[in-house]
């Protein structure tokens, strides 16, 4: 896996068929094609504005996430991608990913994606179990998910990711194993695994903590599920390269790795975050406000959404993001980035303090298998 100093581009599409019950991300229900087309035009304008800010940077990964980007008509999406290519310098081997909800995929859309150069598709499966899907409030069922993966492969996608979720209230170990088996049988090139997080402000939060209708998955169950998945994926030849991600060799996501390797990325669309040229900022979250900025031809970033961190804080970010990779991060790279001795910044005793949770592997500092389960405890020490 090579990591270049090229930038990754993130494009946010904050619309969904409906909001899932666990979702705390920036997305709104939308079923009007007209609005989606209008939104794609706004993105196009942002691309032009942004290019003027960051000219001549080579882009080697584009990630269109959401929300549900596959909700947008295929030709509108193609226009967005083409606009990126026309403005920025996009490398020939650029990884271009689009997130898709199984209920929204059609042959026509897949065709349009491939034609404009999208070469990776990430399908939000979550589970191959209708009870669980219904409980999550997903807009698709098990068969939709299987069809979506088959259709994508048939249309010509040779790099498919599926998202799976575990630790869902009511999900048994057997259900989880069945979902994993079904996944491995369909053999996507990449699998993302997420432990369900109950976020405040979601219907799930109220269901669990306020109305107490269902109870949270016990932690040992959650960890047993995680373990089970790692074992099954390992047996099937997948490489577990980051806390929540595994891939067949050579299919590790370049875009994902940028976040964890202190690489530059630029975010487009409301609420999208950027880390570029040493600056961290976030686009405004309100769609209406975002549109106002775009219409005025201005970058949609409010001054309060620019984060200024000290060098020491940036070091902390370097470490905690780096620790998400199973191979960890190279201490020499850290020292080259900050021109400071790692063990001057963080005392040696930290290795002793978290013995069994972090370790040195050559020049790399990484979490142990046990450390992955409690990564925040360790990471918090470095921020």
């Amino acid at each position: 896996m090579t990591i270049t100093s090229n930038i990754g581009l993130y494009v946010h599409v904050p619309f969904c068929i409906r909001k899932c019950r666990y979702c705390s991300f920036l997305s709104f229900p939308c079923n009007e094609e007209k609005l989606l087309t209008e939104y794609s035009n706004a993105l196009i304008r942002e691309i032009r504005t942004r290019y003027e800010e960051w000219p001549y940077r080579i882009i080697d990964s584009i990630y269109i996430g959401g929300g549900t980007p596959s909700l947008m008509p295929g030709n509108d999406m193609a226009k967005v991608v083409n606009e990126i290519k026309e403005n920025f310098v996009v490398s020939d081997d650029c990884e271009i990913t689009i997130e898709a909800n199984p209920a929204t995929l059609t042959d026509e859309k897949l065709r349009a994606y491939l034609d404009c150069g999208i070469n990776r598709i990430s399908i939000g499966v979550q589970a191959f179990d209708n009870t669980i899907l219904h409980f999550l409030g997903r807009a698709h069922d098990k068969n939709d998910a299987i069809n979506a993966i088959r259709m994508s492969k048939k249309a010509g996608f040779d790099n498919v990711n599926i998202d799976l979720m575990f630790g869902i209230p009511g999900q048994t170990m057997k259900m989880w194993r069945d979902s994993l088996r079904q996944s491995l049988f369909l053999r996507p090139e990449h699998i993302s695994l997420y432990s369900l997080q109950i976020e405040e402000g979601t219907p799930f939060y109220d269901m669990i903590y306020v109305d107490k209708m269902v109870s949270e998955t016990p932690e040992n169950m959650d960890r047993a599920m995680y373990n089970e998945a790692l074992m099954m994926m390992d047996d099937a030849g997948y490489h577990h390269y980051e806390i929540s991600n595994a891939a067949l060799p050579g299919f590790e996501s370049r875009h994902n790795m940028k976040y964890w390797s202190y690489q530059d990325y630029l975010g487009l669309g409301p609420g999208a975050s950027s880390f570029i040229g040493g600056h961290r900022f976030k686009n405004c979250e309100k769609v209406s406000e975002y549109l106002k900025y775009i219409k005025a031809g201005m970058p949609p970033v409010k001054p309060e959404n620019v984060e200024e961190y000290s060098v020491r804080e940036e070091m902390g970010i370097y470490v905690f993001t780096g620790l998400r990779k199973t191979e960890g991060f190279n201490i020499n790279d850290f020292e080259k980035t900050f021109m400071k001795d790692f063990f001057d910044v963080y005392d040696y005793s930290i290795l002793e303090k978290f013995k069994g949770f972090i370790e040195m592997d050559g020049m790399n500092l990484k979490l142990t298998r046990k450390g992955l389960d409690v990564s925040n405890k360790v990471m918090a020490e470095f921020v």
Partner: protein
Amino acid sequence: MSDYRKYIRNFSIIAHIDHGKSTLADRIIEKTGLVSKRDMREQFLDNMDLERERGITIKLQTTRLVFRSKDGNEYIFNLIDTPGHVDFTYEVSRSLAACEGAVLVVDATQGVEAQTLANVYLAMDEDLEIMPVLNKIDLPSARPGEVREEIEDVIGVDASEAPLVSAKEGIGIEELLEQIVEKIPAPEGEENAKLKALIFDSYYDNYKGVVIYTRIFDGTVKEGDIIRLMNTGKKYEVTEVGTYSPGPVECKSLRAGEVGYICASIKQVADARVGDTITLADNPTEEPLPGYKKVQSMVYCGIYPAEGEKYENVKDALEKLQVNDAAFRFEPETSTALGYGFRCGFLGLLHMEIIVERLEREFDLGVITTSPSVIYKVVKTDGTVEMVQNPSNLPDPMEIDHIEEPMVKADIMVPKEYVGSIMEICQDRRGKMLHMEYITESRVNLHYDMPLNEVIYDFFDALKSKTRGYGSLDYEFSRYEPSKVVKLDILLNKDMVDAFSMIVHESKAYARGRFVCEKLKEIIPMHQFEVPIQASIGQKIIARETVRAYRKDVIAKCYGGDISRKKKLLEKQKEGKKRMRQFGTVEVPQEAFTAVLKYDDNK
């Protein structure tokens, strides 16, 4: 009588908390034109932020006002404020001793409360003229007729002419002021007699030293006089005398009947004790004024610097607070769990809370407080007696013949529908009912004999909670009584944490032990290993809970590269860690120390 005294009125306003004393004082000040409406802060006399927030008066304020009456004369009103809480009864009584009359404010919607009564009795003890006023008359729920009867029945003062006022709306204030002139007697005394003046409050000023609030009963005092404080015997030279209106205004002398301040380069508030008598060193009066007593701390607790806080900083702050608060005392002590800290004595639980809050707010210090304790009288087998207020200092059980605990007489006033639940919580706290009386058809005064230990724990919270805030409490120390109390220890991962130790009655030990273990289980985060929490009496374990070892702590998805969101989450986690206290291998959040003291409604 000298002419000037005819135009002086010295009075206090007494009331139950929330009955509008401070608002009424504001109106009076405004009406007499001392402070323009524009400069008027809410509740002028409560000048500590804390007081304004809590709606109670902690520190006294005294103000000299000028009122032009309908009779054409100008009168000097000395309005002497009183602290509004049961912990400060002695200070209240000394303030009242400086007056000839008391304006009794009664909320026309609520009627007479326990503290109203307590304050009225104090005023009666000082032979004051009591002048009732009905406040909050603007509220639709006001029932002046009934409340008037209540005042006459319960207190036995004539309320037929009580002015109907609304301090909030400024209704009836003029009439109230005229009545003060009419009803409250002018001070007596002889300005050429030997000096006899009462200290009713004092505070520390960085430039002037201790500023004494005083009421002159006889004689005159002026700059240059050498005064003697009769109970401490110390002598000082007067550097300044004056009055407050409301800022200090220097004057030539203070004469019999007047109220004002004296500065005499006194270094500690504790040297100018409330209740002491001031006289002249070379021409002293024969008898000091009656009623002086040295205030006693009733409640003790340990105060320790929180993690990362310096011992010296806490010490400096405590010293500064003590300079201004004669009732607060402290001395160094050490705890195996918390290290170096201080044992502090307070008048009561509220006084303790106020000191702790001031440390945090005014000095920006993080402190940990241990379980409050009363003073136990330990009679040893060899016949000697030890006074113990720190559970860690309790002698070996083999050496103890018996232990006595302080008892109080508590008056609890509640609407009758709550009598049942109050009797329950009192019984639960080992209270013995002495008698019960109906003040009116709907209100009851319950007299209880109770251990102070139970009152300081969570009684006030329980009372308020069970009576929806309508219950009120007043108590005073009565005596020591033999009692079966034991020392309850808490062990974390098998190690005793002395800061959690407490002395409790045998009958309560199991319940308290269980409660503390359960609370700690909720608060102590999961560790990399199991943490047993145990409560024990001596070697015997009486309760146990276990904090499980943690297994999962990850944030799975990082949305759209939002590293800042994740960074903030991790920082929060780290912040939480900082406020932890390390005991051996176990980390305990600081809030644990207060949480184990809180009243639990579901209990």
